[in-house]
């Protein structure tokens, strides 16, 4: 029996507005608990919400980038439930009329194919605060700094068919919101969160199976892992004669399992109704056009352009365009260097990304600027240093030892291209390795590589490998 997994995702993207969606309090992450909560965020008696216009513009921007329809009039509704980190006892959200609906994204999969994922809706709402259950000796702490931060909840159709597709879709949306600069995408800080609706059905069935909703998926890896685990659980259950119960389940990454949330936590009748404190959100054509004018080149278009203009592989273009800032860096290098775009791509994806990850530095704060990397690549191009030496130079520049020229100068790394000097080194190596020379002469071609290596070693890597090769062949009469 073969099974098909059906997945839909609900992504919560925290909007990158300076202040909260209904109050003037700052949204900056990491402040001392309860220092960024105004009376509105605290749900004090008598206070009223006032909508942040930037949140509306960001939602419209997302809608435009995903081919959605933008509602001319949408309304806020109250979602009523009690929890200590929800100060008003209701969350202001959108229910019947969301600001954005009916769009799609095309997701590139590792096998080169594309999955068309429909976006059912994206709506504005406010985030809750945080409950801290540890560190308070049997009590719970409440931090309301996050309460009232604007969220865009992006709801996909159940269009994904595997954990990998779900992961790819999540990455796609992640890249998109960062391109649009409407969310910082920080998964560790919870700026970008995801719930997954998962069901299984027998291949060929058209009716959807009973779904479960997985919560607490705060990394790409967790999304994929949780879906796989849940898929296996559901298949095993059905094959064993059981039935899937529609419920909300928590993913536990430590125990690698999903388990039902207590029914109390989910058996809510939210008693939605239109929020009488807020007017309907009105979006006219003029606003849409103003927002449209601020749309950057989007990942799809950029990837397309990179493959065409720079002759990059689909894979390279993909990697380089996931993050707009990485793409911008790459283009800055390409513009400034004489080296081929492919070389620049390899360096950006290899040395640079490696160094950034290793040192946990953001690309905006890269210790090697695009101009510096371009200068380094030019040195290779000009034959001043070898590719191998260039990596050493890159490391040194990264570590703050000075400019490319200064490092090459200081460490004496200029490539040896002088024929006399190379001939001398070659002669020494031939004299010192009689046995290998004998083997080569007997027809064992691969020994040449060993001899080249010996010359390079003697030159401390500075000899021009091409010239060493030629000199060896010449002196060995090959």
């Amino acid at each position: 029996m073969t099974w098909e997994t059906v997945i839909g995702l609900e992504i919560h993207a925290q909007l990158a507005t300076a202040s909260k969606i209904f109050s003037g309090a700052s949204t900056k992450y990491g402040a001392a608990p309860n220092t960024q909560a105004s009376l509105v965020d605290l749900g004090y008696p008598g206070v009223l919400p006032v909508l942040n216009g930037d949140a509306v513009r960001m939602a419209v921007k997302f809608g435009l980038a995903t081919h959605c329809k933008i509602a001319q009039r949408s309304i806020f509704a109250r979602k009523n439930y009690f929890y200590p980190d929800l100060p008003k006892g209701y969350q202001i959200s959108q229910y019947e009329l969301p600001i954005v609906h009916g769009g799609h994204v095309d997701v590139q999969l590792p096998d080169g194919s594309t999955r068309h994922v429909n976006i059912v809706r994206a709506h504005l709402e406010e985030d809750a605060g945080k409950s801290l259950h540890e560190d308070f000796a049997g009590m719970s702490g409440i931090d309301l700094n996050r309460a009232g931060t604007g969220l865009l909840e992006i709801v996909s159709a159940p269009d994904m068919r595997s954990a990998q597709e779900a992961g790819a879709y999540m990455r796609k949306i992640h890249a998109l919101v960062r391109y649009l600069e409407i969310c910082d995408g920080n998964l560790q800080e919870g700026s970008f969160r995801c719930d997954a609706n998962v069901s299984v059905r027998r291949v060929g069935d058209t009716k959807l199976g009973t779904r479960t909703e997985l919560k607490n998926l705060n990394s790409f890896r967790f999304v994929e892992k949780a879906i796989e685990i849940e898929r296996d659980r559901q298949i095993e259950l059905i094959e064993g004669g059981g039935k899937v119960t529609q419920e909300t389940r928590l993913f536990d990454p430590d125990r690698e399992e999903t388990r039902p949330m207590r029914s109390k936590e989910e058996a809510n009748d939210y008693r939605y109704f239109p929020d009488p404190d807020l007017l309907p959100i009105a979006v006219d054509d003029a606003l849409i056009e103003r927002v449209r004018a601020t749309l950057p080149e989007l990942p799809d278009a950029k990837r397309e352009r990179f493959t065409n203009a720079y002759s990059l592989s689909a894979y390279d273009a993909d990697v380089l365009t996931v993050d707009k800032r990485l793409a911008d860096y790459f283009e800055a290098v390409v513009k400034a260097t004489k080296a081929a775009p492919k070389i620049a791509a390899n360096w950006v994806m290899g040395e640079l990304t490696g160094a950034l990850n290793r040192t946990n530095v953001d690309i905006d704060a890269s210790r090697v600027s695009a101009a510096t990397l371009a200068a380094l690549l030019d040195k290779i191009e000009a034959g001043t240093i070898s590719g191998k030496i260039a990596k050493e130079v890159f490391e040194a520049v990264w570590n703050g030892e000075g400019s490319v020229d200064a490092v090459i100068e200081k460490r004496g790394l200029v490539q040896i291209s002088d024929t006399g000097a190379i001939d001398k080194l070659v002669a020494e190596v031939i004299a010192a390795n009689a046995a290998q020379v004998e083997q080569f002469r007997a027809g064992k071609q691969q020994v040449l590589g060993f001899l080249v290596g010996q010359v390079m070693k003697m030159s401390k890597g500075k000899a021009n490998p091409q010239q060493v090769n030629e000199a060896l062949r010449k002196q060995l009469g090959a």
Partner: protein
Amino acid sequence: MHTRTLAQLSADLRARRVSATELTKHFLDRIARHDATLNAFITVTSEQALAAAAAADKRLGRGDATPLTGLPIAHKDIFCTAGVKTSCASKMLDNFVAPYDATIVERLQNAGVVMLGKTNMDEFAMGSSNETSFYGPVKNPWDHALVPGGSSGGSAAAVAARIAPAATGTDTGGSIRQPAALTGITGIKPTYGRVSRYGMIAFASSLDQAGVLTQTAEDAALLLEAMAGFDERDSTSLDDAVPNYSKLVNEPWERVTIGVPESFFDAGLEADNAKALRVALKELEKLGATLKPIELPHIHLSVPAYYVVAPAEASSNLSRFDGVRFGYRSAAKADDLLSFYMRNRGEGFGPEVKRRILTGAYVLSAGYFDAYYLQAQKVRKLVSDDFTRAFREVDFVAGPTTPAPAFGLGQKTGDPIQMYLNDIYTIGANLAGLPAMSLPCGVVRGLPVGLQLVAPPLHEAQLLKTGHYFQRVTDWHQRVPANYA
């Protein structure tokens, strides 16, 4: 001095016939003398009042005073006042000191008004008799065995007994107009959105509107023009310029047509009350108004629609009172979160508030939402359309404010439906968001009754002017209960 109107006192202050300090002391003395009986105040802010009066006297001396500078008034205890207990007459907020001023409090303060204290009311403004207050009922100054009406019962009693020259109030279904009628004073509920709701503790957000209770329409004009106007902190406040009401009420009379729904005079209205009303309408006719019978075909559905919409919104608005961040928290140790909420809310709220929260949660629940909440919203639209249609032909809709004069303390507390029917004539204006005013228009069994005028949106100036002209030719508003003259 205490029987003088705000307008007169304003003139007295400017002419230095009296100082703000003398005036404030006079009213604080009257509160001290009478409020043990009336129970109109929850908090009397004597110290702050005298300090504000001293500041007002300086301002009057400097010559940068407004017409309101130095005038003492009382605020309904539903408006947040910085540093002063703001209880909403609930045990839930008995310990709550607001950290900020409501917009109207701030605006009146900026104009130089002196706050005497915070007035009693029905708990969270839910009630029509002021009997649901945690601080006990307010007595009607005309007869201490009777209720003053509600929910702004403390404000009404204070003004009627002349222990405050004027007071603010709020009106969700008649909470300014009904107590004004039952205590023989003037009360106006402006157009929804005319006055900011910021800092006014919400009962039913789509219906709540702040207004004033005064001796005269002219006084109401004076106060309202300082309170009204757009507030960026309230998204539902209207961004329209505020007319100069106090000047406009004295402009020449224009001919108006007054619509009178005959259904208002059916069996629900006490006969003598109806008689008084007919006489009052005759007075308006003598002034040059044309009376025209009209119909409001859906008005009889207002009360049921209101008692779905208002509790629905209230059930959500009152969720924030959970004992987590402020307000009442039970002394009993809770076993879990649910019992924590149940204790705090179960002990903090009174029975009428609980009744409305339960009703509201019920009508919003899955499976009942369409049948109740949506249906009520449709009725609300029908009622609103009735008025819109009427205002194509008439300038005002007139009728009684209440079915009868004030009733006895405890007389209706056992029967919520009878209590709710007290608002049968006033609720329509809230559902439609229209400005409405109650004017003292006669005496029935020795007790005052009110004439209600409802106007199209933002026609407060016309409403106040008509009230002012009516009060030029009648003296009902000048009558003071015997013990308080």
